[in-house]
């Protein structure tokens, strides 16, 4: 057992871990951060994606001990109170999830992509989330969600924003309203 100190979602934790403990198992089983999930054992599916010192990584392919002294952000640390991150909000708005199992990883990977490319095309989004598998959505609404969030984070859909927009001040209960812009309601 080796002691590690990790800052996860803005709280510090000191724990003893075995060297072989994977970061995702440490998060889930020792910290109770069960929002981050495991979907495979070969680092293909991306469901376990978290940010390690600001970069998206597959937490099933990082040892917990390697996170010693690092800052980890999980899906549970994205929202500020009732204020969802724009990418979370966009996944909801654009129906970018169904069963939701891939969603934490998909959202964390998408945020990482938008950091490098604030205005990705459809194809760039598709390539940017190539390391995250979804079995439900066929990805089309995920692509829409990421592009929509990108526009909001840039400060409007015209792509001229400066990217300094604060998190969307919308809670899930509030956004449950009108028809999605890309879907024609049945008349």
């Amino acid at each position, binding site marked *: 057992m080796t002691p590690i100190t990790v800052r996860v979602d803005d709280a510090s934790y000191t724990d003893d871990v075995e060297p072989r403990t994977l970061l995702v198992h440490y998060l889930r089983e020792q910290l109770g951060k069960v929002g981050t999930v495991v979907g495979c054992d070969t680092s293909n599916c991306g469901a376990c994606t978290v940010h390690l010192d600001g970069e998206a990584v597959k937490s099933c392919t990082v040892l917990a001990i390697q996170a010693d002294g690092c800052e980890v952000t999980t899906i549970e640390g994205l929202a500020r109170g009732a204020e969802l991150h724009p990418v979370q909000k966009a996944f909801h708005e654009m129906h970018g999830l169904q069963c939701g*199992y891939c969603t934490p990883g998909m959202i964390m990977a998408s945020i990482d992509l938008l950091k490098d490319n604030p205005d990705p095309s459809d194809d760039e*989004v*598709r390539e940017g989330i*190539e390391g995250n598998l979804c079995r439900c959505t066929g990805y089309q609404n995920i692509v829409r969600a990421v592009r929509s969030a990108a526009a909001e984070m840039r400060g409007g859909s015209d792509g001229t924003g400066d990217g300094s927009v604060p998190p969307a001040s919308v809670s*899930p209960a509030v956004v*449950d309203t009108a028809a999605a812009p890309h*879907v024609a309601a049945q008349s």
Partner: protein
Amino acid sequence: MTAVEDRTGTPAPEKEIGKARRRKEDARLITGRTTWTDNTVLPGMLHLAVVRSPVAHARITNVDVSAAREAPGVVAVYTGQDFAEEQGSLPCAWPVTPDMVNPGHPSIAVDQVNHVGEAVAIIVARSKTAAQDAVELTDIDYELLPVVLDMEQAVQDGADLVHDQLESNTSYHFVFDAGEMGTGGDTEQAFSGADVVVSRRFVQQRLIPAFMEPRSVVVQPQGDNYTMWSSTQVPHILRVMAAMVTGIPEHKLRVIAPDVGGGFGGKLQVNPEEILCLLIARRLGKPVKWTETRSESLMTAHHGRDQVQFVDIAADREGHVKGLRVRLLADMGAYLRLITPGVPALGAFMYPGIYKFPAYRFECDGVFTNKVPTDAYRGAGRPEATFAIERIMDELAVELGMDPMELRRKNWIDAAEFPFTTVAGLAYDSGDYETATQQALELLGYDELRAEQQQRRESNDPVQLGIGISTFTEMCGLAPSRVLGSLSFGAGGWESASIRMLPTGKVEVVTGSTPHGQGHETAWSQLVADSLGVPFEDVEVLHGDTAISPRGLDTYGSRSLVVGGSAVVKAADKVIAKARKIAAHLLEASEDDLDFSGGTFSVRGTPGAGISIQEIALAIFAAHDYPEGIEPSIDAEATFDPENFSFPHGTHLCAMEVDTDTGFVKIRKYACVDDIGTIVNPLIVEGQIHGGLAQGIAQALYEEAIYDADGNLTTGTFVDYLVPSAADLPHFDTGNTVHTAPGNPIGAKGVGEAGCIASTPAVVNAALDAVRHLGVSDIRMPLTPERVWRAIHQGGDGGDRAAAGSNAYGGAQTETTAGVSTDASSLGGDR
């Protein structure tokens, strides 16, 4: 209380049905506040790891688990002998013929293993890690038996047997003959007199449902009661079956499906591990958990498809179809699971598709092999049928020199002919194939793409273009209970719902149709908001716990909205009927003089007099003032049993580029127009279509479970079992026509499987259309670049793939079982 107030001028609320409501479910899913089964932690909980057979067919000659028992943290180790007397057999609910042979299916092997991955011992330990470490300390000796893998060989006389106590590898022979059933003419006659007969052999490769959430089970014993949490599609069915298998009385067993991360048929099962968790929790009196790894899931969760189809079609020279003959070999795997034998039989009725065949005969042999059992996978029988008919229609068109769409038009059921009883005896309810097709052609830009195809052919472009068509229908809304009875299915097809009107006017809706990602909470809220005239936000939908939702048949077969949603609407009708009596009493009016609209009862001809149903809920909770002779409750329960299936249909078109130099295929454009009846939530409908398309396209292009000659699954990780990513799939252009289903109060037909059923033949037909002029008439699925290249340059259908796993991660396919290590490779770094 203000039972009466002025209601004039209140605008009618907007209809919820048809509105693209964002999903209520999302709030927890996008924030990680989820309740996956594996999240469950209970005091004193023990962890299970399963020791699995590394061989496909063998007698177990010795089991030595003594070292594992001594390992740190290990509490107990069990073998098949330990449960031989009490484990019974996993259930098969669908004996498709009276003489079907079912060898029985132990949850843990006792003296023989019949597929790689079968459980042979169980470690129970204080931690998951300790359990997994101890797996490597077990020592099991096997006496190898001949491995049976190929169905066509397995049905030959003298073939090696999977189960040597049986006479053959054939479980059953199922026949549907329209001539004998009186729904069509004599098939042999139809063929003998036909101008043209086209015969093909199609292979439905073995697929893996590959839901994203690995299966997980937790069982907590409490005295003689047991609570089971399971990542299942079917908590209600699981409860009944687990009670029957283990002897735990049904009323002592509660099953909970919390958040469930996808299923696609793959979690429509009673799993060995669910039974074993119950048996071990009972024996130890402690809570236990089992969560599978992905490799375990790919290796041992049931697979789908795996059929060889021999299809003959007869027609006259003008292109009128005269007869259809289908003979199937369907791979059961080593055992019969919940509905293993029924999957191909379910497809039996769909081979005629949307066409007016005068004669039809279907035969199917269910065949045992030393592979993991097959069972339901999205579409279950209907994708296979749709593939066969849509592929053979193209082949017939080629034979006749006719445009494939013209051939279809000539034979499909016209809009004016609905309802139409097909040669398979099904009464198709509604639709308009021509309109859907026209819309799809426009969405695709059919004429421009045909022109480009011509140009590419003329210029001998190395990248050729093809367009594939699939005009499909399916039977959904499973299912009329009497029809299931006539097919010997072990249960009905009804669904249950109840509505509880709470004192504050909020509404609890209990549904027996258990979701696992579809969005029932949102759609059911919309149904109830419209029926009861209450705000969408005031409705809460409860599900997935047999203690909360005691009656139900769960979610599969595109049934939830059609059957389960209808039960909800029926329950709402009963609530209104009960409330009407209270309203009449409180408003001092006759029931006959009450109108109910927008959630409020008003008295006809008396402006201003009215009471809302939410107010009635409070009044009847207080129960101070209600009519004599009735119970003080407006809660209601309903069970809906459909009288017919529903029949979604649509036209799917795929434009495909084929690189003739490499065989690489790329979807250029995909357009489809589906008629699924009434659309309750267009957002959810669109999502279901997209997801179905992804899986149908994946069957055509990417996915295949491959076993090597020893019966090892070489596609044992996501490295080699290729679930496509966003970068591998195209944008989909989707549309709808709406012909409401007459068989249910909503008018819905079902949408969960449409995209998956329709797309596969469209994709394959497109690839063939691109290279048919090069002499290619078939390519086996999935259309790997190698197969496409071989078909173009060497003829044939592309042939078998090599069975060896790729050398990714130094050959890290898991032909080893979980926890069984092989020689360490010489890895020095990483990718």
